[in-house]
């Protein structure tokens, strides 16, 4: 029921923005600024790029206020815009960087392995290396799998909402998540052993 109430409230705010109420736009911005930037940051893994994309997301929300109709959850619409921009940005950067990025990634992985061996001496370095490994494992997922995992894990979206954002069926989302988590489990499950 809370989710439904939240949906109605966000949609109501957006309808007020449509009527010209700028304060409602600021309320939506306050509520979703951090979730959108966090999501984009984990997608593109560069804060300046993530913030630039998030600016574009909110700008598009504002620009399209006149034609807004609450046909879907506001968050579904918001994250659909964010995902579209993130995927385009990733593809553009991949085209720009080409093979160079792959070489860099391999180099980074070797650095992490070295850092991991020193971990007994330097806890801070270990934590950073673990974090880097998580980043790389997530970053190595195909874009749609990555988006699905980030929405599922960090935004706590359900399958239906993720399907709405990605424009695919619920069963396709389940399949994306299953494959993605299998890869992540293989790459990351050893990281928590040291903590136990």
């Amino acid at each position, binding site marked *: 029921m809370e989710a439904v109430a939240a949906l109605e409230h966000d949609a109501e705010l957006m309808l007020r923005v449509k009527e*010209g109420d700028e304060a409602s736009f600021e309320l939506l911005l306050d509520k979703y600024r951090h979730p959108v930037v966090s999501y984009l*940051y984990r997608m593109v893994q560069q804060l300046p790029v993530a913030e630039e994309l998030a*600016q574009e997301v909110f700008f598009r929300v504002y620009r399209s206020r006149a*034609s807004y109709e609450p046909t879907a959850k506001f968050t579904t619409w918001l994250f659909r815009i964010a995902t579209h921009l993130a995927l385009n940005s990733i593809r553009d950067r991949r085209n720009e960087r080409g093979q160079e990025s792959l070489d860099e990634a391999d180099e980074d992985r070797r650095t992490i392995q070295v850092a991991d061996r020193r971990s007994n001496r330097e806890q801070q370095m270990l934590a950073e290396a673990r974090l880097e490994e*998580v980043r790389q494992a997530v970053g190595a997922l195909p874009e749609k799998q990555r988006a699905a995992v980030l929405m599922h894990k960090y935004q706590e979206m359900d399958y239906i909402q993720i399907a709405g954002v990605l424009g695919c069926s619920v069963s396709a989302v389940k399949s994306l998540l299953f494959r993605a988590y299998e890869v992540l489990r293989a790459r990351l499950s050893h990281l928590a052993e040291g903590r136990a």
Partner: protein
Amino acid sequence: MSECQAVREQIIGQAGRPSLSAELESHLWGCPACSQVYLEHQAMWRAMDAWEAPEVSTGFDRHLFARIGKASPWTPLDWMLRWFRPLQPAFPAALAGVMLVAALVVQQGRQAPPPEPSVTMQVRDDARQIEMALGDIQMLSDFEILPVN
């Protein structure tokens, strides 16, 4: 779908949240393979939990509103949509009415009598009629029907 496959989908659906259904817990107790998968997922999610997103820059809103300010706050289209919004339900009927009136006007225009001939034409016709009348009078007088002065 096998029971283990269904259980693994449930583990994924749970996304590291602590609550376990009784059915899932019972399966994990009796299935070492799924139990191992469950523990590995827990470890993976703990590792992922450590990945926090940084704080948003303080200038974020300022940049956004500056950008919004540069763009026209309300475009003419926005205003038009706002003005016509209350009329939206009646709009199709109004449009149909306007088109019907336009069609009637066009139709009447087609059926209207041809335009009056110009003054020059009229004068020319009057002269011809007088000539014909004089001719007729002459013809009748030739037949002695009319007295000729």
